[in-house]
């Protein structure tokens, strides 16, 4: 009997959808032309690029000329922030973002701080939500950009992006949102939201890796990140990864066409998992917002145990998940997101993220609910912190 494998790390990456793969395959060795070439091979590739761009535009409610393909979600974030900062430095040097952004945003802001920009990192509450009041108060005459992630990759909290973008618009400040995790799990319409820039990534929505998109509202001033040829209307040079672009287009189309059903399915699995864990395991805490959360995100802290030991134990029974523990981040501190929502170190070390996707079933959830309790119990039986709590009050 082959070992059962359950993949619940869909916020890390997803498998490529069969329909996406099917559309991509001819562009590796059949329709391999360079879209910049004049001949029929080139025109064929160019046509495929146009179709993909159209699909992404429709998915986001944007115009085709506002869609720019990049090499990743990280690149899209870098481009948005550095591009706006450099192009608008005559107007000011202040950027507002949050403490719980992805490193693609945080490390970009830290880099800009070294080059004379000033950055305000907004706090979040215990659920991971920003305060719109604090956002308003943080705005200065020198503010040129506000960048707030749509939904958090670790705890799944969804921010009030429409309201935040409105505040930015009133003050004539550019607004960017990293929507890498939101895409495919939340309805996104750039015009309704009123955002100026928005980043998404292919591989989080059953598209290929190595492809991202930056939506740039017509009229937004931003510098290039990369300089070179005339690709992407001279704004993102480099010969296009045509197969990945085609895959991105199809993935974006599928993600939006089936969005309502997807949200219903994921919410049902998510809530079954959350309730099941609460019922079966004592001393646990759900991280993130109870309702304003991604349909596919479950994040729990298990007191008295450490996340990496939990991940390895789950991996041994075929369950693939992730953790915000320091031991899995390669640093001594647990995740900055878990610290920002006010968790103590020991609780943050014991976090587990289960992120659901199209590939998951009710049986997967049942398998996790069957395997997880004895694993937590075993690790707790090894932990010196657990005894102090048995039969009494929790004291870590």
């Amino acid at each position, binding site marked *: 009997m082959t070992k059962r494998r359950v993949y619940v790390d869909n916020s890390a990456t997803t498998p490529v959808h069969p329909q996406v793969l099917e559309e991509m395959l001819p562009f590796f060795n059949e329709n391999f032309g360079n879209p910049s070439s004049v001949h029929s091979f080139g025109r064929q590739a160019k046509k495929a690029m146009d179709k993909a761009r159209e699909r992404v535009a429709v998915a986001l409610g944007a115009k085709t000329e506002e869609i720019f393909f990049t090499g990743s979600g990280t690149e899209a974030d870098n481009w948005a922030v550095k591009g706006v900062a450099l192009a608008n430095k005559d107007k000011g040097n202040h950027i507002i973002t949050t403490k719980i952004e992805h490193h693609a945003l945080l490390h970009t802001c830290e880099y800009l701080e070294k080059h004379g920009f000033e950055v305000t990192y907004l706090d979040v509450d215990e659920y991971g939500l920003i305060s719109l009041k604090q956002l308003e108060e943080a705005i200065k005459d020198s503010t040129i950009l506000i960048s707030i992630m749509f939904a958090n990759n670790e705890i799944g909290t969804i921010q009030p992006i429409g309201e935040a973008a409105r505040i930015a618009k009133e003050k004539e400040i550019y607004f960017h949102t990293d929507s890498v995790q939101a895409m495919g799990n939340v309805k996104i319409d750039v015009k309704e939201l009123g955002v100026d820039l928005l980043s998404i990534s292919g591989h989080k929505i059953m598209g290929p890796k190595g492809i991202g998109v930056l939506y740039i509202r017509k009229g937004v001033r931003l510098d290039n990140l990369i300089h070179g040829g005339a690709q992407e209307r001279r704004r993102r040079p480099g010969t296009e990864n045509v197969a990945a672009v085609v895959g991105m287009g199809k993935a974006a189309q599928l993600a939006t066409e089936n969005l309502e059903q997807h949200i219903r399915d994921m919410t049902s699995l998510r809530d079954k998992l959350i309730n099941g864990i609460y019922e079966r395991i004592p001393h646990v805490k759900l991280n993130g917002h109870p309702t304003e959360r991604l349909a596919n995100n479950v994040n729990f802290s298990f007191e*008295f*145990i*450490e*996340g*990496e*030991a939990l991940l*390895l134990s789950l991996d*041994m029974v075929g369950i693939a998940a992730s953790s915000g*523990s*320091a*031991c899995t981040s*390669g640093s*001594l501190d*647990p995740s900055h997101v878990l610290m920002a929502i006010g968790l*103590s*170190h*020991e609780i943050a*070390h014991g976090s587990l993220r289960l992120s659901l996707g199209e590939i998951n079933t009710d049986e997967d959830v049942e398998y996790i609910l069957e395997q997880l309790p004895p694993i937590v119990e075993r690790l707790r*039986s*090894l*932990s*010196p*912190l657990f*005894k102090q709590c048995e039969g009494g009050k929790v004291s*870590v």
Partner: protein
Amino acid sequence: MYNETVMEHFTNPRNVGEIEDADGIGEVGSPQCGDIMKIFLKVEDNIIKDIKFKTFGCASAIASSSIMTDMVKGKTIEEALALTNKDVVDALGGLPKPKVHCSVLAEEAIRSAIEDYKKKMK
């Protein structure tokens, strides 16, 4: 990431538990770092007759505790004090670089338990 010996000690750790009337108890690490090791000793005629541990931490912290307790069990106090973190790493067949501090914790834990034992003897 981890070799078979580490995984084996993580999956089936030796000497887990506590000793009620321990002659020496050592506790090192902190929840902030995500590692706590607690060691219980039973000593007779200068020999470690029994040793138990409880560890909060990652797989390598648990494996380091397990193999360390195996290594010092039945040894004299002096022999146990001579144990270094390198001995622990070698016995485990190596640890990934960011995890070497777990072996240091194991060395510190046994020293701290022996110190406690010596204090109690006075």
